[in-house]
């Protein structure tokens, strides 16, 4: 009995920290509310789609910025896509990093863009880790009968 209660608390505390630290926003809550018994894996599914899509976009961004003559419209389009999908799952910090990135695109500032790309990659990695930990905790709770 103790095990379940402890796991529940750990999950609750961890979840709260994610919102407090700005990793997640209300959009994530909306997603969780959409999940039900007929779609028990919905949140994991959507987040996995997001991971796949983001990985693709980040590698396209790196490629685009390596070109001799950088096509800033293309770079901006990729960042715009990533901004859209990160906001749709509530990945607030990733979304914010995209917003800064687009300002450098507007200025056609390569240095700035490269720095932003690095920051974006960092935020994305952090986000990915946090979400994977969250799902692991949820899984543990389920398996413990919670």
């Amino acid at each position, binding site marked *: 009995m103790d095990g379940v209660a402890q796991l529940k608390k750990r999950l609750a505390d961890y979840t709260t920290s994610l919102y407090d630290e700005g990793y997640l926003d209300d959009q994530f809550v*909306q997603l969780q509310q*959409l999940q039900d018994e007929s779609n028990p894996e*919905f949140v994991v*599914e*959507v987040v996995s789609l*997001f991971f796949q899509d983001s990985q693709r976009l980040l590698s396209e961004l790196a490629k685009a910025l390596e070109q001799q003559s950088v096509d800033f419209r293309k770079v901006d389009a990729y960042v*715009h896509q990533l901004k*859209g999908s990160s906001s*749709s799952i509530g990945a607030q910090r990733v979304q914010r990093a995209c917003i800064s990135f687009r300002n450098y695109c507007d200025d056609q500032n390569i240095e700035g863009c490269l720095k932003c790309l690095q920051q974006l990659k960092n935020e994305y990695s952090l986000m990915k880790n946090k979400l994977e930990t969250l799902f692991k905790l949820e899984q543990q709770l389920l398996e413990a009968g919670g």
Partner: protein
Amino acid sequence: MKKSGSSTTIVKKFSALVVDDDLVIQRIHKMYLNRFGFETQVVGNGKEAVDLYRSGAFFHLVLMDMEMPVMDGPKATRELRGMGVNSMIVGVTSQDGDSEKQAFMGAGLDDCYMKPLTADTITSLLQQLNMKYR
């Protein structure tokens, strides 16, 4: 048939079409719509939406993304209206600019929202549909 007090009472089964190239948005919007009782189909760009209508399909509600490859939202909306389609077409955009939103509305939308849609927005769309197809 008298409507009950709940604003999400389904009077009839509505059909919806999600037009968006973003897989994450597709999944989320489809989920929302199904949850509210819609029968939902999903396509990845404006041309696929137009082709569906050309082949005789009809949807009560169309969620039209603004930026898509092959054929974007404004163009697809213009084509559909030009074909005489009077479904409720709602634009969905992540663009922050007002001018883009205005231009999109000008293509023939009934309304335009920021993505992703929320439960409140879908509820309001459902209410509008209930009134339209009373």
